């Protein structure tokens, strides 16, 4: 009896003690802990082991060799996890457990900058604005202050299967700087001659809409990053028309998700892929198609003034969480690697196929490499040239939220609904999204 009672007491005490232990501070943060007294430890979060995380690990090697007193811990986790943790930690103003350095998508970072001012560190002092493409910097510039260090940029291109196009009677020159209506005509011929679809559409993915919008220098919001620019926007109107024309022409293959899309590319189901430059790595996984692919600029919108044959879709940048210990060390890490080391960025072109949006200043020798997979075309040189043309647009803070609304309304347009009405509907629905404060 006695022992039992004692045990019970102990158990109860343990249960009661658990509470402060769980809720109590984990003294300092991940970043503050030091394995070795003399070493400063900083942490960084990124997703995608073959791309972002790999680049981070290479940067770590370089930096630690120069700074033996610093250890960088690289933590790989999914994009969704990163977003969810940042959302909750910033909202709770609980910075324990957050990393020093975090990778954030350009479409999303505006939300953090505007909703949680002060969370991310002003990095103006380590970034020379003249070195970078302005369209990239604008995503994380507020009141003239630059809050991020550019990582990858996704300049767009049109990858195409030379063999399919040839069967339909087209050469590469026929695809150079075309318009979307020309693209659709070619697509019909290709479908007729080869049975292959010209383009793909993945469920839940509005890549094309974003490519179209940026190619004509517009977005869901105006320059102030807040007021909506959807109803009556001629670019979005024509973008919807392009979607509809593509679908009506029957030249688009639908994929339910990313995996199916990759399989489709590898199967040779598509004659062209209009996407960001990083898709080249995916295309190259179809080794048996080597030499059959080539690259041209994306089509341009027909009736919109100022529309160009170049655009950007997505991309991410590095940020320093200001309130985590050792933020200075983290800032210095970015300063000496991604922010200024063009030799390193040039190396990453070969390592991961990085297009960094750093202006060409002669140090990017790897851009000149001929790629046998793309018929010895210097694809990076082309991308670098097109990047100069990409219009700068404000991403606002609700891109993904509005995307979902646009996707719904786009369905009504594809089923024959009126485009102007759809745009008004999108604008009034987007206007309901909560405002800051």
């Amino acid at each position: 009896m006695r022992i039992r009672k004692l045990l019970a007491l102990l158990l109860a005490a343990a249960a009661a003690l658990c509470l402060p232990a769980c809720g109590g501070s984990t003294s300092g943060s991940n970043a503050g802990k030091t394995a070795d007294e003399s070493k400063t430890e900083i942490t960084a979060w990124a997703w995608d082991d073959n791309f972002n995380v790999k680049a981070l690990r290479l940067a770590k090697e370089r930096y630690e060799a120069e700074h033996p007193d610093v250890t960088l811990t690289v933590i790989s986790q999914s994009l969704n996890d990163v977003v969810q943790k940042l959302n909750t930690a910033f909202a709770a103003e609980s910075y324990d457990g957050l990393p020093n350095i975090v990778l954030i998508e350009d479409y999303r970072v505006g939300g953090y900058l505007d909703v949680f001012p002060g969370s991310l560190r002003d990095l103006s002092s380590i970034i020379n604005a003249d070195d970078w493409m302005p369209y990239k910097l604008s995503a994380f510039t507020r009141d003239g202050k630059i809050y991020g260090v550019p990582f990858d940029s996704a300049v767009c291109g049109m990858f195409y299967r030379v063999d399919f196009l040839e069967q339909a009677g087209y050469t590469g020159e026929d695809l150079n700087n075309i318009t979307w209506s020309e693209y659709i005509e070619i697509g019909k011929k290709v479908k007729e001659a080869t049975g292959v679809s010209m383009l793909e559409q993945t469920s839940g993915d509005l890549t094309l809409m974003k490519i179209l919008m940026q190619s004509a220098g517009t977005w869901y919001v105006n320059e102030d990053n807040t007021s909506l620019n959807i109803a009556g926007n001629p670019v979005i109107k024509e973008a919807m028309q392009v979607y509809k024309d593509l679908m009506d022409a029957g030249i688009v293959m639908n994929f339910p998700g990313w995996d199916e899309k990759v399989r489709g590319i590898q199967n040779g189901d598509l004659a062209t892929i209009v996407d960001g430059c990083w898709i080249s790595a995916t295309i190259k996984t179809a080794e048996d198609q080597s030499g059959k692919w080539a690259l041209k600029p994306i089509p341009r919108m027909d009736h919109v003034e100022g529309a160009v044959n170049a655009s950007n879709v997505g991309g991410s940048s590095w940020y320093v969480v200001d309130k985590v210990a050792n933020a200075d060390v983290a800032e210095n890490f970015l300063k000496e690697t991604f922010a200024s080391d063009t030799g390193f960025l040039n190396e990453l072109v070969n390592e991961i196929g990085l297009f960094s949006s750093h202006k060409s200043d002669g140090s990017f020798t790897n851009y000149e490499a001929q790629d046998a997979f793309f018929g010895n075309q210097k694809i990076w040189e082309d991308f670098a040239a097109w990047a100069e043309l990409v219009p700068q647009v404000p991403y606002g803070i609700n891109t993904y939220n509005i995307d979902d609304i646009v996707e719904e309304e786009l369905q009504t347009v594809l089923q024959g609904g009126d485009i102007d009405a759809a745009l008004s509907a999108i604008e009034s629905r987007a206007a309901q999204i909560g405002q800051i404060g």
Partner: protein
Amino acid sequence: MREKSKIAKGPLEKKLNRTGWMFVSGASALIIVFTFYPVVDALRLAFMSGKGNQLSFAGMGNFQRMLQDETLKKAFFNTFLYLIIQVPIMLILGLIIASMLQNKDLRFKGLFRTAIFLPCITSSVAYALVLKTIFANEGLFNTLLTKCGLISEPILWLNDAFWSKMLIIIVITWRWTGYNAMFYIAGLQNIEPSIYEAADLDGAGSLQKMRYITAPLLRPVILFTSITSTIGTLQLFDEVKNITNGGPANATITISGYIYNVCFSYVSEFGYASAIALVVVIIIAILSALQMRVGDKE
């Protein structure tokens, strides 16, 4: 007087009391901090609007916004569609399976029971991935149907607004039927076999036995399963998130899925999300009360 009565307690009793309180205190403290406090705080949040931690009092603003929110309406429509179509199918199917498994002449009962129950203890992520492959445009299911000549074009299970909803219904039925069947099996085992024998003597068919014996005697169990299934469906999240991610174009999104998006996928709007959650709680309470009423009749 009070003092006296306290003193009057024996030392042992007092000690026991203390032990008891210590036992409860840990668990209660945890429940208070991690359940009650968030519930109360969510109630407060439901009347706030704004992004992230920049919230301000909005009165009924969130609820007015809900009335105009087309995506939310879609989410409600989808959730209730799942509820109205899926729950009855699942419960009836569960009942049929349970009575089949109760058949005295059935061999390998254990095997069948396990097979029926297995889906609901499978990890939702794992089975979602498997089902996604089976129901892919060129997946096993479409290939089978095409080979059998039942369809000429593959059904776009994941790309089509109608079929993706059907897919979700199929998937959750597959997963939860066995779970409910287990309750019915337990209930059936409590029904006196002599009642069925008497019915046999009176010449009752199996349908009549189901209608006049099994169903009425199982009423409490049926009530329980229908309430838990209703609540479960209203909170449906993982299946949809993993299989269609709410798509195509929010055609399969559920209320919980939308709450998640508002909280974590978009720039966080905890106030609006709490308001939606509050409405869901009220709906669940009303539906449960209704079902209790209906179940308690007679």
